[in-house]
């Protein structure tokens, strides 16, 4: 972004160049909304898919099965081909009413404004601290996203024999990453009496040769400089110590809704997402939100019937795969286009 852009009033500013942000920009273009910029704090597009080094990504968007990093590259290529402007290394630091943003960039801090702003900042896992887990603060404790970005982006690993906490879909991505990285987990722990992800995926623990311990939680992390062991406790209160050199906390996704929380937008108390209406609009009509940053409360996870197989459309909440975020980005972009232009027509080739 050039400094001459400083005082421009954009039609739409999109925060985040992940699947939903890029899909929204492409969709807006088809509806004739061209004065759009995506602000991305990283140096590459793709969001979380950049480090999800496993398939399946891209089924909906590219009719092909891709790994995350390849998908992320394709997203960036598509955006470039269609003339979407992505400003990398641009971190939004503040949202103000009416679509006014404070943005930090290596060339200085700027004030930008848009008629509409789309928040597409994604989601992340809950770290150890927010889970209030007992023990010291040793090295070797991280989330799946960290393991994946260390391994797939930097070829480094945080541990060799961790304990894996959680049994969500992402927990199995974590096992798959471990296998690729030559990491052999000691055990997978699940606090409830059954895995969050059920048949047939939980047979995967056998494939990965990782014992799944149900009704078990970490009662204490042991180790001063690095993790040396964990104390685990089962439903009967029996305590056991497992030797390990790390802990991989998986899942418990939480929307990356910091900008909304720090600013004026109303949050959905049940999900910590920006509160949105059916069109994706936030409490300030200049703001919309799409993709994984918007999570919908699930009344009771037990209420929904458990499917035999999971695919892109029936994955358990919360966390949507890239294809669903892509679709949500398109959907909310259509709301924004109609909000700005009224009755325009969609031009597929734009």
């Amino acid at each position, binding site marked *: 972004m050039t400094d001459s852009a400083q005082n421009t009033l954009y039609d739409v500013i999109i925060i985040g160049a992940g699947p939903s942000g890029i899909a929204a920009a492409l969709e807006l273009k088809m509806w004739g909304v061209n004065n759009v910029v995506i602000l991305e704090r990283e140096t590459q597009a793709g969001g979380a898919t950049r480090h999800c080094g496993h398939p399946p990504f891209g089924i909906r968007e590219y009719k092909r099965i891709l790994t995350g990093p390849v998908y992320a590259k394709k997203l960036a290529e598509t955006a470039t081909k269609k003339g979407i402007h992505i400003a990398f290394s641009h971190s939004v630091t503040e949202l103000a009413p009416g679509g006014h943003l404070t943005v930090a960039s290596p060339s200085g801090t700027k004030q930008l404004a848009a008629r509409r702003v789309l928040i597409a900042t994604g989601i992340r896992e809950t770290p150890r601290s927010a889970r209030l887990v*007992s023990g010291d603060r040793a090295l070797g404790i991280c989330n799946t996203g960290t393991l994946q970005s260390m391994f797939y982006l930097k070829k480094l690993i*945080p541990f060799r024999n961790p304990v894996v906490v959680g049994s969500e879909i992402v927990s199995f991505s974590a096992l798959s990453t471990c296998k690729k990285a030559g990491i052999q987990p000691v055990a997978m722990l699940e606090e409830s009496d059954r895995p969050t992800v059920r048949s047939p995926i939980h047979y995967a623990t056998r494939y990965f040769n990782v014992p799944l311990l149900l009704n078990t939680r970490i009662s204490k992390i042991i180790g001063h400089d690095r993790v040396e062991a964990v104390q685990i406790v089962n439903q009967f209160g029996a305590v056991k110590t497992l030797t390990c050199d790390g802990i991989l906390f998986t899942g418990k996704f939480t929307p990356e809704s910091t900008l909304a929380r720090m600013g004026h937008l109303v949050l959905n108390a049940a999900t910590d997402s920006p509160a949105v209406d059916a069109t994706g609009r936030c409490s300030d009509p200049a703001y919309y939100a799409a993709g994984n940053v918007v999570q919908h409360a699930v009344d009771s996870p037990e209420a929904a019937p458990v499917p035999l197989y999971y695919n892109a459309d029936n994955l358990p909440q919360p966390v949507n795969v890239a294809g669903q975020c892509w679709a949500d980005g398109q959907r909310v972009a259509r709301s924004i286009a109609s909000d700005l232009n009224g009755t325009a027509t969609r031009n597929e080739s734009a």
Partner: protein
Amino acid sequence: MDTAKETKSALLASCDIAVIGGGVVGCAVARKMALEGASVVLIEKAADILEGASKGNSAILHTGFDAPVGSVEWKCVQDGYKEYREIHEEFNLPLLKTGALVAAWTEEQEEKFAAIIKKGHDNGVTDIHLISRKEVLAREPNLSETIRAAILVPREYVIDPWSTPLAYLKQALENGGRALFNAEVTGGEFDGEKWLLNTSRGSVQARHVVNCAGLYGDLVNQNVLGDCNFAIKPRKGQFVVFDMAASKLLSSVILPVPTERTKGIVIFPTIFGNVAVGPTAEDQDGRDDASVDTDNLKALRAQAVEKIPGLANIPVTATYAGIRPATEFREYQVSEDPARHWITLGGIRSTGLTSALGLAQHVSAVFKQQDIHFTAPDKPVIPRVPNLAEHRPRDYQTPGYGEIVCHCEMVTEREIKAALQEPAAAGNMNGLKRRTRATMGRCQGFYCSARLAELTKGIFANPLDAGENHDR
């Protein structure tokens, strides 16, 4: 075997004053004596400063209104407070002018107010006064309405717990001092004129020794002097840090009415833009067991929510524990042994961050009383430390920072690289975190650990990564 012995007995340094311990007190003493012209060596057993009692505290700059009247602690807190106010700007150290409220939630607590105010006034903190419930709520509208009244302590402030000792160390180093890390003092001999201290890395010759070993202060005296008149009784304090969004809910430090044993649980704004609650006061045997536990963390969080109901909707960002070097006595254990050229600064509990500069003044005064003088440099170097305070301009607001590495705390590549440069380079990941705020935020390293592992590869003995592995 012989080689190992030789290596360990190798003379690493020879100096006027050896300071044992790289906590805030050791850093302040090293600074003061370097400024007075002594050759100083700071000896620390860990890989960086602030690895003991100084790593986890509430970062309050205390007025000393509630210190034991006429005590060494009171004097050092007052002197330290005054000197910090005089020097902080030239070091680029922050001061968050929060003020504090000693809050009463019960009639019983309110009944103690008169005694607290009298003690404060006796301690020379004459501006503390009672304010009504209405005045409290006007000042802090997010406090629970069950508040009854409070004592306003207008000049009780919040500072940066890590950059402050770092600034002291840097000034010591830039004025001729040295620091030895990973060097644990195991014993020593005094020949009537000078000490030969044995450390795990080699020996250090010093004319005088100042023991600032904090949690190990009694052991150092026992192992080197052969005796110690106090025993460290480690007391752990756990803290819960709320997301920065909580900063909208609180502007003052909320102090409890103290009990005999402890100052109690404080709710306070941090210099980094968060709100934190703590510490607990748990006696334990372990001197390095700074572990947290779920039950206490939940209880702390609940207590904070009870007093500031709006915190119920704010996520927890971090949890930590610090260990105070309490002793069997209520007072600091400050003593000198002129015959053996030894000064002990022991049992420096909760108030050490404030009193450190005062304790350093005390050490300087002791040397002068003993007619020991040094030649001060004409123009002492005054190093500036990077600002980490949220209420002042941050590095990312100045162009040319490279990239943002830690997005939650907005830490730049330029800041990370600077923290890895001498003098006083980070010695481990914790040290890097304390110098930059990297990984301190709400994601706790989710987004930036990979980049940090890359930037610090091969630098630390205990690295973020466990090695390299390639896709198979």
